[in-house]
């Protein structure tokens, strides 16, 4: 079980959180202007690296705040 550093509450067990996938994938400014391919890429395509990965978590059973961490997907070490 991961120990996840919530920026507001400190280190808490993984069971208090919801996973939010890759960080830094903003909702497009003007979806209507995107091609089908670009919109499809926003909807469905995410990185899946072996190693460091910036991802989002929500402290859903705590303060309900969303935040990002960098986790090593091999060792599960939380780098930042």
């Amino acid at each position, binding site marked *: *079980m*991961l*120990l996840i550093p919530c920026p507001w509450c400190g280190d808490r067990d993984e069971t208090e959180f919801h996973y939010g996938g890759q960080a830094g994938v903003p*909702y497009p400014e003007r*979806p209507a202007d995107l091609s089908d391919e670009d*919109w499809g890429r*926003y*909807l469905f395509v995410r990185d899946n690296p072996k190693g460091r990965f910036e991802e989002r978590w*929500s402290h859903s059973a705590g303060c309900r*705040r969303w935040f990002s961490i960098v986790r090593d997907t091999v060792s599960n070490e939380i780098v930042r």
Partner: protein
Amino acid sequence: MRLPEGGRIDRTKPLRFTVDDIEYTGCAGDTLASAMIANGLLEVAPSAYRQRPRGIFAAGVDEPNALVQLDDPMQLATTTELVDGLAAILLSGKGRLIDTPDPTRYDKRNVHCDVLVVGGGPAGVAAALTAGRTGARVILADEQNELGGGLLTENRLLDWLADAVDELDALDETRILTGTTAFGYYDQNFVALAEKHRLWHVRAKRVVLATGAHERPLVFVDNDLPGIMLSSAVRQYVNRYAALPGENIVVATTNDAAYGTAFDLATRVSTIVDSRPEPPRELVRRAQELGIEVLAGAHVQQALGTRRIGGVRVGDRQIACDLLAVSGGWSPAVHLFSQSQGKIRYDERVAAFVADKSVQEQHIVGAANAVYDLAGCLREGFRAGLEAAKRTGFDGSLPEAPYAATETVAPPTPVWFVDGPEDRQFVDLQRDATVADVRRATGAGMRSVEHVKRYTTIGTAHDQGKTAGFAAIGVITQLLGAEAPQGTTTYRPPYTPVSFALLAGRDRGELHDPVRMTPMHDWHVRNGALFENVGQWKRPWYYPRPGEDRKTAVLRECRAARTSVAVMDASTLGKIDIQGPDAGEFLNRMYTNAFAKLKVGHCRYGLLCRPDGMVFDDGVVMRVAENRFLATTTTGNAAAVLDWFEEWSQTEWPDLKVWFTSVTEQWATIAVVGPQARTVLSIVAPDVDCSAESFEFMTFRDVRLADGTPARIARVSFSGELAFEINVDGRHGAEVWNAVMATGLPTPYGTETMHVLRAEKGYVIVGQDTDGTVTPQDLGMEWIVSPRKDFVGKRSYRRPDAVRPDRKQLVGLLPVDPEDLLPEGAQLIAPDTSLAQPVPMLGHVTSSYHSAALERTFALALVKGGRQLIGQTVLAPLRDRTIAATVTEPIFYDPEGTRRDG
């Protein structure tokens, strides 16, 4: 037999026990296995697959043979503490589940510590001492009922050990857990410990692994005969339990460790067979002084005997014996280290896989780190304990180590197997798997130990290869002619078996999952409601009267709602209070329809979609004030919708000033439904003008009920009938419900009737008529998708996939036989479709009911290109018959909406 003196047993406390119903006597401090040996009982049940005689082989968790059925199935005699009255049945490899509930109360504890030390041998005790002395919070866990580990086997430093245990006991912040196995090592030093009736979840800042090492067997012909035992087990039985497993002993070894066994049993040992051409001179000299012959560069080819070993063949010689103590070297117990993602590597020097690189905040010391001399173990333990404490912010110093003679441990010479019949050279005693089986696997082209394991089943029995694992690796290495072993199988939790009852703890039966009940729950129970689980909520399903089955009760409830008045407890609907100057704008971006211009005092039904355009949830939203809305959600999705709102407001639009609070449980909601709903309202809320003109559909007002209770009454309808929803503070829910029922008019109804009523009107239930692949357009709800404003998901409706003509669309179905009820989930096909598989499916039934209003059955379905099929027939092929149904518009009752105003 029992030795007249020595050992750590209490001869003044005899304990009676039975094995296969024969009575024996042991002593306090015995394990079942040591007591059996003390009674001359070495042979256990025959092997599971080949029915070969087997005996006690080990003294701990690595025991492959001595399985017994106690109150718990499949326990090891070697790890079962002897208690008075213990009744054991010997098992051949398989246990029997107990079919009565386990009355024991199991518990869980969550604890944090600075330093967790796993293993209470010399290295672990040393680590706990230096860490504990700094004042750090320390937990020392050991699977045995007494600290000491190898010291108890070897009879060494027992005074030092006793003092150390006393000191650890006295330390305020140090906790000793004996009889407690660390069985799982997870991320960020989360370690699970199994005590007999208690599960510990430990989060440690640093972990010291002092898990010791497992002695390995030797593989030769008939190496499974009773009377063949690991050399460390023989030593442990004699020194710790004063139980002597044999009188005339031969020791066969590849390394130094077995010499200790030979020396401790000197007068009873005739021969040491050492695979090394040049064993350490000091050991040979000592053996000779004791009158023990040492055969160097030799190994046992075959064990002789039928039910019990009678001798061994070494080259051309036969040597008589009644006990053979074997040592095929040592494997550091890197299980937990490996579970923690630590990397291991093969070390030629000690012929074993050893810890290489840690990933977590940990130390690995002593035999677990392939350090086999006592002085080295103590040194590593002291250092690691102090270092671990320092890393967590404490300080101390290294103590003077107790005297332990410096030993050099000479390298082993492994022997993987011998010449001779390979189907009698056992690699895995539990699985009766032999060198011949491994050869079949490598002959079939397998190279990886993972593949060989699955092909031969080696290492898959209850001990998960603690003795067999490395033996198999060695055999594979030799068969493939490889220089060194290539790798191990993956170590996974649990290290030793853990009972489900322990893992479940108190989360059984009613406590398995939290149960949520509305304020009116007791009334429902008193009035005979049957309940349905919706998420964690208990919702009334229907209220059968005496003699009524479900169909009859539901038809009666439906009739009441359509012809007079009926009430439902709707308190479980999710409710989210949304506040802030940008609340309207936020909802505009989330819902498919517009909310920014909704008037205060009005309600609107809204649909939420994911960015991919698929329906996610729905509900009515009220505008309570200029900057305040109350959104309702489906019962099961309340938390998900709140999370959804939080996610978009925090991560995408932090500039919008809007905040969310769950108020689901703060409100109780009573839906009053039917043409006579106004009569009920006129009694319960006499001051409210309920006329259609004054109290418009989709508006609400804050009022006081007859007894002065503040209430919010909304004119919304999920049935098509005239309906009012009375919302009150949850604390008043029961009394207001009672007041409504006291009018004597309404019939209570449950979720089943609610489902029928809404389906007659073609209203969908998200999650029943939708499944995450359905767009609003698929549901025929284009009217709710705003063409003017943007919202989450809108772009997706232009994707080619969203406009395919063969998308599944919501339609109604009327079975040709009006009494035929389509099963929900039934697959639909076109007429004249061949039933040869694969059968091309048109879609499936999502909702299906008997209707009182229609006096027949009807259904909703998702059907490919369904709207084009209206008027045509589809078939639902079932196991024993086929139901034909006509495709219709998904609205069956009052399509003009004339009943809404009563």
